[in-house]
């Protein structure tokens, strides 16, 4: 009885989480003249056709992905370096650094956005540029992604045995090589988590991008600008495509990992025999 209850509860939670996405996907196939997103008119692929013909939305998507990839990569590298530095600080400087790291996370996004915009505008004027654009977007995204990377990597650093690094050097490894061969693989799960978080946050960001984008258009801004007229189901189609790509890749990764775990077990079994 209790098990059935637990199952129903889990099912409800998943339903709650995924129902909006399912509705979104279903209505991307809606055949409706009036671009309705609530009244079903029949099955059709017209929104997908429209999506691939619409140059503007695809340019916005391109911009968003480019910014996400570059800022995720840059903030991961910078964040890892920062985390390693913070880890080897004494107690007081470390406390101060952690407080500073928490600022972009704790600040309301609109405060960060407006202050970055003011900073960039005066910097642009100082250096004789004309307007904000991709450069300011990169800087802004790296700024707010950094704390998440640092916070993902630090726990892994703390978990790691501090003597590993010294042991590697005792065995004759030069310091640089010791870092890359010993420390980095140990903290890699934290780095990967940080990378994924930074990527997701960057794609998703609206408020900060809105203020610092200048004359560049990112996808969330484009979608928001459709609200005066009508949010077309093209957006449903685009979201479905993105969701499908991510889902397929996750399935491949998980299948591969499951297979590797199976093959790992077999040799040990043979050895014990």
């Amino acid at each position, binding site marked *: 009885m209790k098990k059935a209850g637990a199952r129903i509860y889990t099912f409800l939670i998943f339903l709650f989480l995924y129902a909006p996405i399912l509705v979104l996907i279903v209505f991307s196939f809606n055949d409706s*003249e*009036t*671009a*309705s997103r*609530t*009244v079903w008119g029949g099955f059709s692929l017209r929104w997908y056709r*429209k999506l*691939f*013909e*619409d*140059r*503007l939305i*695809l*340019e916005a*998507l*391109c911009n968003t*992905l480019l910014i*996400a*990839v570059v800022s995720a990569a840059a903030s991961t590298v910078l964040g890892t370096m920062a985390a390693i530095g913070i880890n080897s600080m004494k107690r007081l400087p470390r406390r101060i650094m952690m407080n500073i790291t928490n600022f972009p996370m704790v600040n309301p996004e609109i405060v960060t956005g407006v202050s970055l*915009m003011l900073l*960039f*505008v005066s910097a642009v*004027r100082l250096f004789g540029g*004309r*307007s*904000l654009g991709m450069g300011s977007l990169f800087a802004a995204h790296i700024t707010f992604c950094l704390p998440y990377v640092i916070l993902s990597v630090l726990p892994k650093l703390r978990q790691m045995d501090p003597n590993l690094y010294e042991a590697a050097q005792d065995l004759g490894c030069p310091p640089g090589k010791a870092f890359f061969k010993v420390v980095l*693989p140990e903290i*890699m*799960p934290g780095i*990967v988590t940080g*990378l*994924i978080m930074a*990527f997701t946050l960057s794609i998703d960001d609206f408020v900060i991008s809105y*203020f*610092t984008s*200048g*004359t*560049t*258009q990112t996808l969330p*801004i*484009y979608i*928001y*600008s*459709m*609200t*005066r*007229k*009508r*949010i*077309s189901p093209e957006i449903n189609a685009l979201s479905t*495509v*993105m969701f499908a*790509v*991510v889902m397929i*890749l996750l399935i*491949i*990764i998980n299948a*591969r*990992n499951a297979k*590797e775990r199976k093959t790992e077990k077999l040799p040990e079994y043979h050895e014990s025999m």
Partner: protein
Amino acid sequence: MKKEHFIRFNLCMILCMAFCLASVPAQAVLAGENSVPEGTGRTDETAVPDRGVTINVYNWGEYIANGTDGSPDVNEEFTRRTGIRVNYTTFDSNEALYSKLVGGGADYDVIIPSDYMVSKLIDEKMLAQLDFSNIPNYRYIDERFRDPDYDPGSRYSVPYTWGVVGLFYNTDYIEEEITSWSALWDDRYAGKILMFDNPRDSFAIAQFMLGQSVNTTDENDWAEAAALLKQQKPLVQAYVMDRIFDKMESSEAWIAPYYSGDAAILVENSDSIRFVVPEEGTNYFVDAMCIPVTSSHKAEAEAYINFLCDPEIAGANMNYVGYSTPESAAKAYMDEEMVESPVYYPDDEILERTEVFVNLPENTSKLVDQLWAEVKMGGPGESMVLVAIILGFLGVYIAILIYKRQKRKRELA
């Protein structure tokens, strides 16, 4: 070794995902650049060589024919004919446009705000006077759109689209014929009424009912209008902008005001939804093209404005956008049903009853903002409920703390 493989593989997959997602738009963008725009009648002319100039255009979302649904890609066509590249970005509201211009971070060459925003920008000296020798197609703009209230002398702007605000209602649920804004205050439709989610449009409805000018600077007038809106608030289902389409179509709501061009689609596709311009009068709005004073490519910007005034291009745009064109010559290139529909092009006697927004002086603007906040979020009286709720939660929290402390004392004793 296995762990390294595992990690390296995962990283590869993540990068794969990013490139997959990026290659989709890249391919389509390349495909799009090679396709010839339809419906412009100039298929085999060679393109004008690139002049090395890019202009930044800032327009409403979904407000230009962009090559989908068989419409010509207007920006591509402009680049083909003049060699000037267009960086086209979009905004969702006049206030967003204004804050971007004032912030100084963005350098636009052509902007397309609404009437009152044009008037505000002119007052604040943020627009450049247009050199009409660069805009010969201005001759196609109809007489009645020249020298408007929001831009006396038409020195700073060229109209792009126009429309009126009207009332949409569902005849399946509303038996009588609606002729007045007072239908939005009717108790019989309580909970099925929608209103605009922006101050000027909502206040305008109340002001037409009270017989005031929508540009009044008298504080008492605005207070009266606000009182009327507050009276209406319990009957309103929601304050919406684009959500009206979904709500009216699914019959979730029965009556709503909206801009004529947009919602004409509702009328066309549904037998039960009807459009009417109420007898008290209504707002008539114009979205106009202007050039900010900070632009560094004024001649090219004027060439763009000129291009959009070309009747063929204007017709193609209006076919896609669905609003009304200020150029009669463009009607020849448009869908006949649209041109003859009274929803898109109301009769002159209806247009006599309309009023256009102009910029309000600063203290009036502040008053409007304050009153709107009061209407939407409730005045001082209603915050007592909020205070009571907060105190309630505080009380519960303190009670829990005390209970825990007593429990700990009992356990230690």
